[in-house]
């Protein structure tokens, strides 16, 4: 079985599971909370149940058609390919450019840095954490000129801070422990 078929079957199973879970919630917690009695007006579960039903139907359709399909389907949009269609494909499919690619491990590393940044942002506040985070991020994306890193990270953090706090009058995360610091 081809990769695409397996991927479709996994997606379809996941969606069926999700829809069944939604259905399960509507017949358990919804019922306990007495949110299901009466007609279309009083029944909060009525509409989600319908949507979940449609998801199950469509997912089964996707799964079964992936199993039964004889050959891989082509993109039906292009009868004849020209240069513009090719460019569009490249743009939409995001094929690797083949220049200074970053390894999969480094990409997961970036995702982890973003998570850690969010936690630290909540704890210590925007202005303390952001310049360091930005510097690290730029470095992960292979900028190796330290002056450029320092300038870019400080300027971008401060500019956003000034824009949001003085023009839009929004307070950026002050940090829970900021009183200890200042």
């Amino acid at each position: 079985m081809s990769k695409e078929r397996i991927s479709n079957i996994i997606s379809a199973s996941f969606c069926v599971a999700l829809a069944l879970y939604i259905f399960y919630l509507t017949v358990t917690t919804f019922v306990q909370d007495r949110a299901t009695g009466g007609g279309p007006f009083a029944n909060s579960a009525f509409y989600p149940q319908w949507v979940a039903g449609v998801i199950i139907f469509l997912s089964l359709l996707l799964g079964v058609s992936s199993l039964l399909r004889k050959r891989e389907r082509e993109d039906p949009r292009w009868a004849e390919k020209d240069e513009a269609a090719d460019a569009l494909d490249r743009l939409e499919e995001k094929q690797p450019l083949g220049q200074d690619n970053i390894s999969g491990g480094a990409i997961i590393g970036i995702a982890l840095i973003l998570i850690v940044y969010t936690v630290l942002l909540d704890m210590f506040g925007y202005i303390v954490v952001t310049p360091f985070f930005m510097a690290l991020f730029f470095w992960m994306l292979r900028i190796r000129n330290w002056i450029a890193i320092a300038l870019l990270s400080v300027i971008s953090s401060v500019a956003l801070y000034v824009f949001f706090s003085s023009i839009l009058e929004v307070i950026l995360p002050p940090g829970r422990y900021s009183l200890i610091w200042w």
Partner: protein
Amino acid sequence: MHGILIGGLETFLGLQQILLTGLGVFMGIIIGVLPGIGPLLGVILFTSIVIHLPPVAGMGLLIGIYVGGSCGGAISAILLRIPGTPIAAATLLDGYPMAKKGKAPEAVGLAISASSMGGLLGGVALVFVSPLLAEIALKFGPPEYFALTVTGMIAISVVARESTVKGLISACLGLIIASIGTDPFTGYDRFTFGYGNLMGGIRLVALLVGLFAISEMFIQIEQGGLNVKPDIKVFRPPFSTALTVLRNMGNLLRASFIGTFIGSLPGTGGVASSFISYAMAKASSKEPEEFGTGRPEGIIASEGANNACCGGALIPSLALAIPGDPITAVLLGALMLLGLLPGPELFRQYPDVVGGLFLAYIASNIFLFVLGLLFTPLFVSILKIRKNRLIPMIILLSIVGTFAVQASIFDVWSMWFFGLVGYVMRKRGFPLAPLVIARVLGPILEPAFRRSLILSGGSFSIFVSRPIAFIILIFNVILLAWTSVPPDKMRRARTAFLRLISKRSYS
């Protein structure tokens, strides 16, 4: 309609509104030029900022980004042969050969002039047609609205790249997401698992930024080419290109008509309109074989259509609250966040706001012409910005913007969650557009569905016994059936159709 425009003058003619609209166009062109971010991401990223502004000024900024962003992609298509946005793909067919011949300034000038004029013609349609449509829609009741909203979701799903079924599943997931939070009828908190943060539902900004911006940035990082700096010479386009466009009036009018019409159909958008317009211009030209070698007509056809498309797309979005593409869906979402419900009632209750939006759209296209041609050297040099400088800044703006909506770290966490969801969905070939449209339409669809059934006392016959609702639902069924035809048969039918409309062999 007079009333709408005069009311609009009052709300739009103010320093803040005009400046922000101009700023929007300026930012929009930059966003369109930059690789990887197009008008959709631009509108999403700025939605988090706009909700701190008054409605017409805020929407003016977003409409400006929409218009500017729909043109900016042409600059990179012409100079680098890489369209900055998908809708500019057809522009490179003649734009790039023209640049190769040393006529890059003319090509960029043509693209900007044609976009601006096409956009203005689309604006004329917007101003004339949408009030009429809103008038008709005022007579609709809940069953008609239910049927129409379903059409909007089916239409966006059937044009999905991979498969209609995946598009429809994506739309249903959007409906489920929209149903999280307090039930509008009973006040019961659905799917909140006791979290107070979920009572108001998933925040639209967190959802959009996560799904589109975060997933896109990760895909860009994966794609590589982070440190590439193209070698381009900066130039200034001649204003006389506007005259070239005017001399091609027939071509421009056809492009604008196609763009507006296709834009106003739900589901289709800028990409289809520019390709069809290009094909039609080629088919009706005396020298079709010259197309692709650097003909100005090719650029005018593609760029005129994709900006006229913006005006067309706004027609059903504002008048019926049925967005035809994800960008107008986000615009509607932003309008709702600003406290205004789009649809026919908006035309009746707030004609001055509607007029202000019309004028913002028209002003955006004038700004596009002036700012676009004046600042071309700046926009061209922006092409030299490397991705590894850009991506961290966009992610920081995403985090800060999402947080700023209501000073909530929870929203930032939801943004990360939906970033992951968006990434996985894209990798598995599930289109994101139907999900977003369904999330925006969900709060309209559910009340329409339940109110219809309340009206009929729980019987589904109400959807068949009311003629308009019945006709729309039959149309939905036909739409679905049409897309389940195998693609090779469809291809033959489509080629035959194109032959028919162009009366020439289409190759």
